[in-house]
C-alpha cells in the first residue's frame, strides 16, 4: 500500500506513465508521425477540461458549458501574457483561478437548477462568453488575440526550472510533456478528491440532494465549490490551448466544443474517474484518424458515435465494469 493505492493499481499507473513519457515518444520517433504529438497534446488538454465536466456530473449536474470556461481561461492567459507582460507560467494558474471565480459568481444562481434546465443554461453560457468576447474591447472582438509569445523560461534564484520554449528546437515535444504533466496532476487531484470525504458528499448529493441536506451537508456550498474546481480545470485547459495555438478567437471554443466535452465524459463512462480521459482519447483520436475520409469525416464520426450510444448506452467502460450505472 502506498498513498492508498493497491499494488495492482500502482503497476497500472506505472505502465500508464511509462507509455506517456517514454512509449509514445519512441513510437512517434519510429513511425515518423510527428503530427501525433499535436493530436495527443490536444487530447491531454481536452481531457483536463473534460475532467471538470465529469466532476460536475459527480454532483448530479450535466455541464454543457465547459467551452465557456476554456475560452475564459484562454483569454485571461493571452491578455496577461500579451498586454500585461506576465510569464505564461504565472498566467496559467491565474487563468484557472479567474475561471473559478466566474464559476462561483455564475454558479450561485444557476446551480439551483437541475437536470435539463442546468444543461440548457450552461449551453447558453458558452454562447454568452463567445458574445462577450466579441463585444469587449480588451478581447479585441472578432479579431481575437494572435501572436501570443511562446512560454518563456522560468528560474528561481537563478536556477532555471523551465526552459524558454521559443529557444527550443522541438516545441512539439515540450508542449506534449507539459500538457501530459498537467493532465496527470489534474487526474491525480480528481482521484484524491473523489476518494476523499468531499467526493463522498458529492456522491450523496448526486443520489439525493434532500437527504444529503438532512444529514447536514451544505449542498449549495459544495455545489459551488465543485463547479469552481470544475471550471478551474476548464480554464487551465483553455489557457494551455491558447498558448500552443499562439492565438485566441471568440470561436476558439464554441457550443460544439462544450457538447464535445460532455460527450467525452459520457462516452468514457461516468462511473469511473479516468472515463473522461479515455473518452477524450477515443473521440478526438478517432476524429483525427477519420480526417483521411475528407468530406465524409463528420458522417462516419457521427454514425459511429450513434452506434456506440445505441449499443453501449452506459459508456465504453461499462463493458468492463458491466454493472452499469445507478437506477
Amino acid at each position, binding site marked *: 500500500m502506498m498513498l492508498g493505492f493497491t499494488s495492482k493499481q500502482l503497476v497500472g499507473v506505472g505502465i500508464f506513465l511509462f507509455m506517456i513519457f517514454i512509449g509514445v515518444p519512441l513510437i512517434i520517433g519510429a513511425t515518423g508521425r510527428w503530427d501525433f504529438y499535436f493530436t495527443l497534446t490536444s487530447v491531454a488538454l481536452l481531457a483536463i477540461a473534460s475532467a471538470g465536466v465529469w466532476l460536475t456530473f459527480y454532483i448530479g449536474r450535466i455541464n454543457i458549458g465547459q467551452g465557456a470556461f476554456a475560452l475564459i481561461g484562454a483569454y485571461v492567459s493571452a491578455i496577461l501574457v500579451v498586454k500585461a507582460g506576465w510569464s505564461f507560467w504565472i498566467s496559467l494558474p491565474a487563468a484557472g483561478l479567474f475561471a473559478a471565480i466566474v464559476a462561483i459568481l455564475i454558479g450561485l444562481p444557476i446551480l439551483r437548477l437541475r437536470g435539463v434546465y442546468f444543461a440548457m443554461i450552461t449551453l447558453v453560457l458558452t454562447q454568452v462568453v463567445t458574445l462577450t468576447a466579441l463585444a469587449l474591447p480588451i478581447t479585441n472582438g472578432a479579431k481575437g488575440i494572435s501572436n501570443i509569445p511562446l512560454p518563456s523560461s522560468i528560474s528561481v534564484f537563478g536556477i532555471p526550472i523551465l526552459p524558454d520554449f521559443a529557444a527550443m528546437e522541438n516545441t512539439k515535444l515540450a508542449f506534449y510533456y507539459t500538457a501530459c504533466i498537467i493532465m496527470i496532476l489534474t487526474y491525480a487531484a480528481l482521484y484524491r478528491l473523489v476518494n476523499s470525504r468531499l467526493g463522498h458528499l458529492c456522491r450523496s448529493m448526486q443520489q439525493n440532494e434532500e437527504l444529503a441536506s438532512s444529514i447536514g451537508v451544505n449542498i449549495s456550498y459544495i455545489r459551488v465549490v465543485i463547479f469552481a474546481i470544475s471550471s478551474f480545470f476548464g480554464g487551465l485547459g483553455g489557457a494551455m490551448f491558447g498558448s500552443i495555438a499562439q492565438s485566441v478567437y471568440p470561436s476558439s471554443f464554441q457550443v460544439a466544443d462544450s457538447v464535445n466535452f460532455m460527450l467525452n465524459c459520457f462516452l468514457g463512462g461516468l462511473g469511473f474517474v479516468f472515463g473522461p480521459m479515455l473518452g477524450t482519447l477515443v473521440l478526438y483520436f478517432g476524429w483525427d484518424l477519420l480526417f483521411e475520409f475528407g468530406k465524409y469525416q463528420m458522417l462516419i464520426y457521427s454514425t459511429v458515435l450513434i452506434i456506440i450510444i445505441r449499443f453501449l*448506452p452506459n459508456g465504453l467502460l461499462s463493458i468492463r465494469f458491466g454493472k452499469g450505472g445507478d437506477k
Partner: protein
Amino acid sequence: MEQILANGVYLGSQYAMIALGLTLIFALMNVLNFAHGQMYVIGGFVTYTFYGQWGVPFVLALVMSCVTLAILGALIERFLFAPVIKGSAREESTMLLAAGIAFFLDAVILLVFGEKQRGVPKIVDGVFNYDFRLIMPYDRILICVLAILSIVAFIGLMQYTKTGRALRALAQDRTAAQLMGVNVDRYSMIGFALGAMLAGLVGGLLVTITGVNLGMGGPTSIKAFMMVMIGGAGVISGAIWGGIILGFMEAIGLALLYQYGDITYLLIFVSLMIFLAIRPQGLMGKPWG
C-alpha cells in the same frame, strides 16, 4: 413603435412554433432534442429543393417538408431513442444520443445540400406601408399568418382529437397513460414525429424570407432551448409565451441597439440567466426537483 410590435409578432410566431416542437418532444420523452435546429434546417432545404429548384407550388413544397421531417422524426424515435431509453441506466444518455444525431444531420445536410446559403423566389411581392410608421413586406405578413394558423391548428389537434388527448395523457404521466390503455410506444413515435414536423414546417416557411444554410442549425437549437426555459419545459403554453417573449426581446433589442451588433443577444442571454435564477421553473412550468 408599431414597427417593433409588428416585428415582435412576426418573430414571436415563428419562434413559438420551433419551441412547440421542442417542448412536445421533451414533455413526451424527457428528451432534450439537440437536433431540433438541424431538423429546422432540413425542412428549409426540402422546401428550397421542391419550390425553389423544381418549381413545385409553395404549399406542396411545405407539405413535403412536413412529411419528410415527420418520417425522419418517427424513424429516429423508433430506432434510436426508444431502444436507448429502454437500455440505458441513466436518463442523460438520451442527451448524448441527441447530440450525436445533431452531428449526423449536420453531416447529411453538408453532403446533400452543401455549405452555401440558399434562397427561394418571393412567394408574394410588394410591401405593406402604413404611413412609413409600419413597413412590412407582404410575404412576411403571409408567413406570420401561416405560422399563427399552424399554432392554432396544433393546439386544436392537442385539445380536441383522440391523438392529442393521448399525447397529453402521455406527457402528464407515462405510467398512468399506459394503465389507461394508451399505446405508449406508438404515441411516443407520433409525438416525436409531430415535434420534428413542426421544426420542418417552420424551416419551410422561413426559407422564403431568410433563406437557409448549414450553419443555422446550432443557433436555432439554442434559441429554442431559451424559449423553452423562459416558458417552462414541457408546457405548451410556456413554449408559446417563450417564443413570443424572445421574439419581442429580439425585435426591441435590435431596434434600440442595432449599432452595437450582437449586444442584443448578450443582453437577452444575461437577462434569461437572471430570470431563471429567480424562477428556475420558467413562467408556466411547475416547480420540480
